[in-house]
């Protein structure tokens, strides 16, 4: 109980004055985007602390890319999660619920206080996203390797109807060891899905260690190129590079685009950075304190 109560107290402290908008993209200034990403990071460590479990490492590595996407590119209306004009996002690496739930909270889908119930019995915030529990979730995920196919299917349906909505997907680097990811990479290019952008969170760590030691995936950009994708390689923690990357992806035609984000697992929390052990572990109270200091300082 103590974790939940402290978690809730910290969540209610609106440190960065984040404002929710009725409709996105909100075209935030760079400093505002940075504060948004800082708040997302804060939510990630507090919600996992509160739950006593969860996946902070890969949530933090994708936080900047998705902070930029959600505030400044993704079309969505928090009051109407299934608005026809929305862009779609599929989280193939479903374990990044600390990130996903924070994005919803910070853009006004629900009150941030809900994050203190993360992984609790009866909470809509399941360990892995479940559309039967939380209705703004488009599709449940958690078993790796499946999301890019779903995103491709959405992109196919939108193209069939001549609709302009964009589809974004997030997959992890370790996740690309799943064969289905490559089936979907193949079919997305085959069907010329230029309305599809994949964020490839390349933090080079998976549960058992370094990706290249467990089962090498390099050279990843060449692999995508040889599968007929547009490729963009960015520093996944540089706001300008993320902005430019997404803009370029949106202007690409005829083929899908992958934004390979060179990222740091656990980014923003000193002791979590580049540590495989923080893939699926929650901070204790002492560690949380350090984490919040690191995030406030903006390391």
């Amino acid at each position, binding site marked *: 109980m103590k974790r939940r109560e402290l978690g809730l107290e910290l969540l209610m402290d609106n440190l960065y004055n984040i404002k929710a908008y009725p409709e996105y993209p909100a075209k935030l200034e760079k400093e505002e985007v940075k504060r948004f990403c800082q708040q997302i990071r804060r939510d990630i460590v507090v919600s996992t602390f509160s739950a006593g479990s969860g996946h902070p490492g890969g949530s933090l590595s994708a936080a900047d890319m998705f902070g930029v996407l959600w505030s400044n590119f993704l079309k969505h209306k928090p009051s109407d999660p299934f608005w026809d004009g929305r862009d779609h996002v599929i989280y193939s690496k479903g374990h990044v619920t600390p990130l996903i739930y924070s994005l919803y909270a910070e853009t006004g889908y629900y009150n941030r206080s809900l994050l203190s119930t993360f992984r609790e019995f009866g909470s809509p915030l399941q360990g892995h996203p479940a559309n*039967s529990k939380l209705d703004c979730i488009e599709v449940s995920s958690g078993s790796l390797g499946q999301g890019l196919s*779903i995103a491709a*299917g959405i992109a196919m349906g939108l193209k069939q109807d001549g609709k302009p909505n964009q589809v974004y997907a997030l997959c992890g680097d370790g996740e690309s060891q799943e064969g289905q990811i490559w089936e979907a990479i193949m079919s997305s290019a085959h069907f010329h899905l230029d309305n599809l952008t994949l964020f490839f969170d390349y933090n080079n760590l998976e549960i058992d260690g370094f990706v290249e030691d467990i089962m090498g995936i390099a050279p990843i950009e060449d692999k995508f190129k040889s599968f007929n994708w547009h490729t963009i390689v960015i520093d996944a923690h540089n706001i300008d590079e993320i902005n430019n990357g997404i803009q370029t992806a949106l202007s690409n035609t005829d083929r899908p685009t992958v934004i390979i984000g060179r990222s740091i697992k656990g980014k923003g929390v000193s002791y979590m950075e580049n540590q495989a052990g923080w893939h699926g572990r929650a901070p204790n109270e002492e560690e949380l304190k350090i984490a919040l200091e690191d995030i406030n300082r903006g390391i």
Partner: protein
Amino acid sequence: MEKKATRFGYSDALMDMAKTDDRIVVLDADLSKSTTTVGFHKKYPKRSYNIGIAEQNMLGSAAGLSLTGKIPYVSTYGVFVSGRAYDQIRTTICYSNLNVKIGGAHGGISVGPDGATHQALEEIGLMRGLPNMTVIVPCDYHETYKATKASASIPGPVYIRFGREAIPIVTKPDTPFVLGKGQVYKDGRDVSIIACGSLVYEALVAAESLKTEGIHCKVINIHTIKPMDKELIIKSAQETGAIVTAEEHQIMTGFGSAISEVIVQNCPVPIEMVGINDTFGESGTPDELMEAYHLTSNDIIEKVKKVIKRKKS
């Protein structure tokens, strides 16, 4: 007796539905000739996707299409769709309760000479164990046509099993079809033969033959394995006091198991089961295999006699 393969009922229904419902889309995995959806691909190229030999991606793509309001029908062999893409069906489709329809072709041992790798004998068990899934095993061409149409009328995942070989047509185009409701095709007081799929015809033949020996069988077609028509099954167990189940599938986890789950909890009576007994199939002609694996009317007759003995003792 007129015969026709059930798979044509699937594709004929899709063609007819597509005329008036532009949400119908079809996905195949390089087997559109076998699943008989090839005509749909030709007539509606913009609503057809051949994903290639990639069942997992096909199910995921169908999931995505359903999220844009389409009603996707994925079609391939039952072994591949239920086995190769099981996790995709479980986590992405059933857990999310998506409106994806699965056409499982080449169900049963009557697939014939291709042998065990291509004979789906476990998919009813795999699919009926999934929450949110509806499972239909039609008994002939007309029923497959109606089942396919009915599947579009309910939200959520549906698995429809059909076969490769031409089998006798036992229903009529105007025979009523209600999802989740079984049908009594022949009344009798001594034993209930409850069958699904190709074994419905065998059950009718067995009942006719047994009548000449003074044994009166009730013959029930249960086309919807899930949700099961419990009411009808319990009622017939009460009326006849003995049951024989018949399926072209593994008894373990399959139709016989599903029926006995209902019976043991509500109205325990002796049950005998005709079906595949924990073994793989092999190559052969459909008739040779149905006989070798004890899936004929003669096998049903044998089980009826056995269950009546148990009933009396």
